[in-house]
Structures are given as C-alpha cells and as structure tokens.
C-alpha cells in the first residue's frame, strides 16, 4: 500500500495482462534444507532478460507447465543482473514438481508484480532486518541490495531465526554476512533446535530481539516470517519504542493472477498483489486480520 492507491477512476493507460510467462532455464539449484531449494533462473530469451527489471520485494508467478503456477517473491537482488532466484519450500503440487526439476529444465515466470520495499526512503537510516524461516527470502533481495549500496545506509543489522539449525536457509550466505564488516548479525534457533556445534543464540526471535535492545532512533525495521513470529515481534518492537510506521513487512497471501483481478489475495479493500505485498505495520493495523 506504500504507493498511492489507484482506482478505476484515475488509472489510464491500462497495461494489457499477459498470462504467457517468460521461459526461464534453471541454471543452478541449491539445497537449503530438507524441504527448501533455491533456484537460479536465467532468461531463455536474451531480449526479455536484458529488459527485465524489478525492485526488492516484488514477486512473480512461477510455472511448472502441467502442474500450474505458484507465487513466490524474487529472492535475489536487482543489483545482480541477468538472473533471478527464488527459494521454494516443498508444500504442494507446483512446489513438489519444482523440487523434482533439474538444472537445464525450462520453467515459466511472469512478473515482476506488486510494490517493493521503499529502499530510497531507507537511505541514511539504521536498518534492522528480522527474518524467520523461509521468510528470509524476500528480505534477502533487499539485504543484498543494501549491501551492494552499503555506504548509503547507517547501521545495518540482521536477526534471523529458524526452528532448528537444519531449518536455517542460505547457510553459506549467513556465514558470509557474519564475516562482513559493517553488518551486525544475530542468528538464533528455537529452544531444542540447537546442535552441539551451534554457536548462535537459542531462543525465539522476539526474545532475542529484546536482548538485542536495538535503538529506536532513526531505525527502520524490515521483517518477514511466520504470522506468529510477526505478531510477537511487532509487540516487542512496540515495547522498544519503534513506531509501527517504521516497521515494514511483506505479506504472502495466496494469489493466482497477480494483477488485482482474481480476488484471492484481498485483505479488506486492498489487493496484496497490487497494494502490497509490502506494507507498513501501521497500514496493516487498519486492515482486517485476514493475512
């Protein structure tokens, strides 16, 4: 909803809907966890690839032809050109077929759709990323974008938690970020999810956040994770004095069309696919709790 609401009255010219996806070749597959894989996709059509642009936080509809389409964010940063990445948890028909795909296989992508993280408004601010589980995927797009423009932001911190060590995604990058200068990293797993070798925190994300005690001064929080984590994280941020306007999240409602027609992602009078997926928590507070 971060951009101005558009209505039927003031919206010309219209963009013709094209349900025909771009053909994408699977360039590499990274096994993240027992049920999450990250796919790097290259454009079969060079011209499509050259003209493709997006902003961090946008999403698309990924196709396995014969199984159908499913919605995922673009998990890579727009500062890295020539490919996109998506991280997919095996949960249903399309995701199961994707998980069985091989490098070289052709899948479909249409997008980018939706709004994006207001990265320009974040310049000069302290950024605190808070991710849970596979919810790190949309944050990763923005996080790499921020790292690639590192000098334009003040402090950059990231708190990431998963149920167990085995459920942490992007393990190689977690290590890479930890070694980086100018990034404050905190990794945690839920109690009971640790291993003997685990050197991160043990505790739920909101608890660890409380211990971190980040300054509310000039701080923008970007968070994504399971609904229950978001709920308690937002409550903790509130206690820490960070206003809801400065807490930005991204919704993952079920979608089909991606362009404000099919009605599936509606929350109140908002379309998550058009007015979101990125919302300020102060905006979400005005909407029915249907996400």
């Amino acid at each position, binding site marked *: 909803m971060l951009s101005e609401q558009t209505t*039927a009255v003031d919206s010309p010219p219209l963009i013709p809907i094209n*349900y025909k996806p771009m053909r994408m070749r699977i360039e590499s597959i990274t096994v993240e966890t027992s049920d999450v894989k990250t796919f790097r996709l290259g454009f079969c059509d060079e011209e499509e690839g050259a003209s493709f642009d997006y902003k961090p936080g946008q999403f698309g509809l990924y196709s396995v032809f014969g199984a159908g389409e499913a919605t995922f964010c673009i998990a890579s940063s727009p500062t890295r050109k020539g490919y996109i990445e998506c991280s997919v948890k095996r949960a249903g028909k399309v995701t199961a077929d994707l998980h069985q795909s091989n490098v070289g296989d052709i899948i479909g992508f249409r997008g980018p759709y939706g709004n994006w993280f207001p990265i320009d408004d974040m310049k000069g601010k302290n950024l605190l990323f808070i991710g849970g589980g596979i919810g790190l995927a949309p944050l990763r797009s923005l996080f790499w974008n921020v790292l690639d423009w590192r000098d334009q932001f003040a402090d950059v911190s990231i708190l990431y938690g998963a149920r167990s060590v085995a459920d942490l995604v992007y393990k190689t990058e977690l290590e890479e970020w930890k070694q980086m200068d100018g990034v404050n990293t905190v990794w945690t797993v839920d109690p009971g999810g640790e291993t003997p070798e685990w050197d991160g925190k043990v505790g739920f994300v909101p608890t660890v956040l409380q211990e971190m005690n980040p300054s509310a001064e000039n701080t923008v929080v970007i968070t994504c994770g399971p609904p229950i984590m978001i709920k308690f994280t937002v409550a903790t941020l509130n206690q820490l004095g960070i206003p809801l306007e400065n807490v930005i999240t991204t919704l993952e409602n079920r979608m089909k069309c991606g362009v404000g027609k099919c009605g599936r992602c*509606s929350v109140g009078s908002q379309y998550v696919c058009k007015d979101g997926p990125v919302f300020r928590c102060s905006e979400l507070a005005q909407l029915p709790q249907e996400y």
Partner: protein
Amino acid sequence: MAEHKIYQASQDWLKRAVEALTAAGLEVQAPVEDETGGVALKQVESADAIATDYLNLLVPLKRIFFPGTEVILEFENDEDGGVTLNDPPELPDGGVVVFGSRPCDAAALDVLDRVFQWDYDDVPYRTRRDRTTVVSFACTKPDATCFCTSVGGSPQGTLGSDVVAFAATDGGALLQVCSEKGEKLIEQLGDIVTPAPADAALPEAPDVPTLFHTDRVKAWLDENFESDFWRGATLNCVGCAACSYLCPTCHCFDIVDEAAWNKGERRRNWDCCSFGLFTLHASGHNPRPDQAARYRQRVMHKFKYFPERFDAVACVGCGRCVRTCGMGQSLSRTVAAIEANAEVGETTSA
C-alpha cells in the same frame, strides 16, 4: 447519454431482428428454455425457440464475457526439458448481439468493468465486451426474491445495457437506446424499428420492495468486522459456491493447468471465496479459517470493500443467490438483518 431515444417495433420485431442480424453475419445469443425448464443464453439463428416468459436467465449474463472456464495459455513439454508456449486461439472478431438479459444482469457489467479494467486491462474480457451489444428485456414480473431497488437498480434500469426493450400494449415493443452501440444496432435493424412518437410512454415499472439501504448497511459493516452476528447469520452456509457461480457480479477466478502426457492448457475457472481452499496458505495457515469468516467476506466484499475500492456496490439484487441456495441462506435477508442491527445499535444478534 442524458436522454435515451425511444424506438418502436411491431409484434414480430424479435423474429425479424434475429434473422436480419444473423444474415449480416452477427452471432445472436438469446434466452432458450433448456431440458431442465431453466432459461439459458444460446446462440440462435431464428426466433422460434426464444423464451419470452421467464424470471431471469439461470446463469447470469457475465458468462458471455467471463466464461466459467477459458484457455489462457497452451503449452507442450519437450523430451529434453524444454517447453513451447502458445497463446490461446484468438476470439472471433465478429459482433455478438445478446437479447433477453434482465436489467440487473446488465448493471452487473458495470461492476465487472471496474475490476477487469483497472490498472491492468483484462484482454479476453475487454475483447468480448467490445464486440458485444446487450439488449435487455425490462422486467414485468419480478418475484419475491428480487431486490434490485435495494442496491440502486430498477426492473427497468438501463445501466450496462445498450438497448432496453419493453413490451408495448399493442404486443409490439418499445426500444430504449442507452449507448452508442445501441444506436448502431438500431441502424442495423433498419425498417424493423421506427422512432417512437414524442408522446410514447414507457410502461410503468413493476414494484420491487426495498429491503435495505446500502449506506446504512455499510455504516454497520464499517464497525462490525468482529461481531457475534456473523456466526449466527451464516450457519446455513455450507460453502458450496452455488451463489457465487450464479452471481452476476462475482468475478473471483482460479488458474489451473489441465495437462495430458506432455501437453496441455492453462485455464482460468470461476472460483469462490466460500471455499476453504481459496485462501489457504502453503504453511497450513488460513486467513479465513471458518465458514463464518468466509461468508462475512462475501458480504463485506459486496457492500463495503468493493464500494470503497471501486465506488459501486457489488450486488445488483437479482436474487439468484436467494433462489438457488439449497440451505436457505439468504443474502438479502442477511443484509436486511444487518440494517436492522444498525437501526437498534445492535451488534450481537442475527
């Protein structure tokens, strides 16, 4: 168009119109009684089978523009992991004339236009809209389930129609032209129609009682997303979606692949917010976890969210949902109860 021009036609006008338009290469759709006794739009080449005595079409006019299922993509998987994609076959570009929709169904096109034509142009819908002329038949015998007057309509409403036809006392018809497409149709009809005399009067509208007022309903909805009313008022809904499929304004759809062996097609099919699967997340979380939440969405969408977003109530009062529900779940009674709640400041009873 401020003033609607009126034409008159003799008793056999429909027969002659169907013949003339068919001869001119147009596709004519008209109400025909089917084996169940219901009336459905079918392509006709003569007026012989056209039904004239019916309350309304069984399936609303929307299906002419937004079919229950349509192909949006064709695909073929190769043996080496590649895939060939093709657009669906193009729609025929010839004109279509629909006779016999009711004013409520035509008014629903105004609702559908708003959602299919904002920000993104829904090309299949718009293509069908552009090539189709709608000739509605004004209602003479609405029944007790009709409530068009409660949602801003009328048994003689012109919104969404290109022409509205009225039965004249001499057995002929009076045709009220409501759009440029309607003007063009009148030209195509040639000597089948003639301008009506200046003193020609349209028949008086039959009475359709007003059951509620949408502004008062919305005022209550604005404050009562959380209310015990919803559970009590929605217990009869079993989530079968019949009301939605037969609703002239409901427009939610699903996108699915239908494939056999290595090739297939991607279709968009009517869907419904009454289904639990409609909003179910991959994680198992469901933002609308029970039938009360889903029926509330149906009411909220029609009477609060759609008006906020698109400046129109997404209900035209055709009464199909009331007539069709096997469980007796009545939208008009539910909404009238909401208005009654609003009047007594009540939030907890059905």
